């Protein structure tokens, strides 16, 4: 696993089918568990669907914020790796993340963050299969842009609302 990867996002292309949530939770949890999926689709208004997942910011504010050193990064994929044994569920990483991407697992309250499925992300596969390409696996290395995708999903949705609905879009979220 030497080629760098990233999951590119095209928010406007997200259909809201949430198969990414299903594929992710099937892979990580063994069964469908939407709130345990590392990628969660927020839909504050119908039509404005936003996939919310880790963007692997180059400066990894989450990793730096962990008081017990439970977070690290994978040398191969550059994904954030959570050591669930060490994690105490304090929520510091959630607060440190500009987009509040991590969340506490609904089962055991441990920090849950996308690990890029060891280089072959399931979510991108199902999104590509269905022809949406809202989540797209690309062979691109780290860049300054990644941290820009760590943004509160409601704010992203507000932008999409204007894109799709014009002035009306400002009223719906």
């Amino acid at each position, binding site marked *: 696993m030497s080629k760098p990867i990233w999951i590119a996002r095209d928010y406007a292309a997200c259909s*809201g089918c949430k198969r990414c949530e299903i594929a992710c939770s099937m892979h990580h949890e063994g*069964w*469908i568990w939407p709130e345990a999926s590392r990628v969660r689709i927020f839909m504050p208004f119908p039509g404005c669907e936003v996939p919310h997942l880790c963007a692997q910011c180059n400066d990894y504010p989450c990793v730096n914020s962990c008081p017990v050193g439970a977070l690290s990064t994978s040398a191969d994929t550059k994904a954030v790796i959570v050591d669930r044994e060490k994690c105490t569920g304090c929520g510091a990483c959630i607060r440190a993340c500009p987009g509040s991407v991590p969340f506490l697992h609904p089962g055991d309250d441990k920090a849950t963050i996308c690990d890029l499925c060891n280089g072959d992300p399931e979510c991108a596969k199902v999104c590509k299969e*269905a022809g*949406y390409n809202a989540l797209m696996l690309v062979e691109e290395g780290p860049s300054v842009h990644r941290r820009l995708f760590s943004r509160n999903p409601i704010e992203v949705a507000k932008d999409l609302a204007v894109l799709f609905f014009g002035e009306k879009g400002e009223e719906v979220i």
Partner: protein
Amino acid sequence: MPGGYAGKFLEADLLKGKISETRFDDETLEAYFGGRGLAAKILWDRIGRKWAKVDALGPENLLIALTGPMTGIYPGGRICVSGKSPLSNGTVGSTASTEFAHELKCAGYDGVIVSGRADEPVYIQVTDEGGEIKPAGHLWGKDGEETLIALNREVGATLAKKKPNVGLWREPGMIYIGPAGENMVRNAAVMTKLCHACGYGGYGAVMGSKNLKAVVAKGRGRMPAVDAPEAAKLLWRRSHEYLIARSGFRRQGTGYGGYGFGNNTSSEPIRNWQEEWHDERSFGGPMFETRFWVKKKWSDWNCTTNCMKVSCIKTGPWKGDITDMPDYELQSHCGTNFGIFDPEACIHLSTLVDKLGHSGINGPNAMGYAAELYQRGILTEKDIGFELKWGDPEAFDRLMRMIAMREGIGDVLAEGTYRAALKIAEMKKMRPEELLKYAVVVKGIEVGAHGTRSDADFAHDISYAASVQGGDHTSLADDGYSDMSGSIFADSGVFCSFAYGGVPQELVFDFAKAITGFPITIESWRRVTGPRIVTLQRALLLMGGPDVTWKPIEDDDNPPRFYEPLPNGPYAGKTTDRAKVKSKMQTYFQTLGWDERGIPTRETLDKLGLSDVEPFMRKLRE
């Protein structure tokens, strides 16, 4: 616990303000499955004995919102809403695609059963912690869009406050009513996601009669475990492969039907079904798509069909209207059935119908009916308050609002086409038949946008006439055998019919078995489970009451209009064949083990485990 079920149901007694939980034993679940089937069973068990006396808009009726074991696992998760229908006085399993369905299951509930009536408007909130009845006075009167926005905010804030440390909370799933439901417009819908509706049956009015504005759910738990997980995962992948391969349907949804059904199969309602053929290119699919479809790949939970698209009007008097494309049913009912062939006007009326919480099919049916009465001089400008001319979107906009608010003639039309016809006959001192001949209803339920006269569409002679759900185009009667594993199965499963068609049936039933562990096959549904559910529905339908009861055989018929010859188009002169209706009706009854009047026989009831229904059927046979 069989696979796929969360295991418990939420009970909300709005009279007492009490929340509790209920379970059903494995035999019941295997016999009735979920959704439509289980709802019929619950209704029979709890209010079946006094059925004829129960007012569907009274506190004794139940409002039932159920998932099924396949919801959220099989593609296209849906909720099924039921109860005693204020229209047919039977039951309808009325479904809509919505995240509410899987949120309920992840919260640990297979469904919600609501009884009684609240003093003040309320909504029910369901979370991992259980159910709560919450005040909704501030929401009462809000249209669908406003309700969605307000509840997203309010419930989102509530959840975040309760458990702030777990990270960002997502918006909940919800079903809700608009002003039409609040004002108990008899055929009002239960709405969700702006433009999805449990349209048939009038359950929006039932919610309104209970002062129930919405049911909201957010669950963070697992989807219930299944019986054979590895098989289920494999079948999940395979079913999606089939759905993804249907490129034409994914591209157009049913949004090209507004031209297609009119021009091709000559079966589209035009001006209250006076015609069914047209060649108005202005109404073509591309005319909608190019100007209005802002999002062309839009889906619901676990669905790759994405037949839905989001439409937005960006300019002109209706700038800002947001709805779905519309789908074919609303293209015709909010379009051609009003004599409207302009996409922008159709999209506007579709938006309005959804905001008001009308059923997009049933509500406009009554409006088209009124417009024909106006055309014929039976209703005058004085009766209505303005001119109700075909093709005038402003007029239909106004009428739509009047009906939702029960103002003026709206109060009469709000009773649904059938009862409105009877009332207007009384008002105008005419014989009921004189008004009923323009009413396109079967057993009180207005008919979906697929006519039977050309015989070129998928609806034929007994499709509506024999159906326990009347004019419901999604649940047509066929031969009493193959149709038993069709929509009855999907409505009980509960999942979307469009995610059902296009996947080989064996695969779907294997999936059902892998999920539940029940020995399910197409055959078992066709011979036993389907007939069981339909027979129970038939019994309740015939028991009817208190304001209307159907006459067996006589009312198992098409509306008078469907026997008039088509006036134009390639099928001009053609009409529904009465002889065929008669003969196929008998075959249908026979196949299902009902007598020649369609009353379930004692033997059949025994065979299907419905022996306790027998005493009531005996009365009917006399």
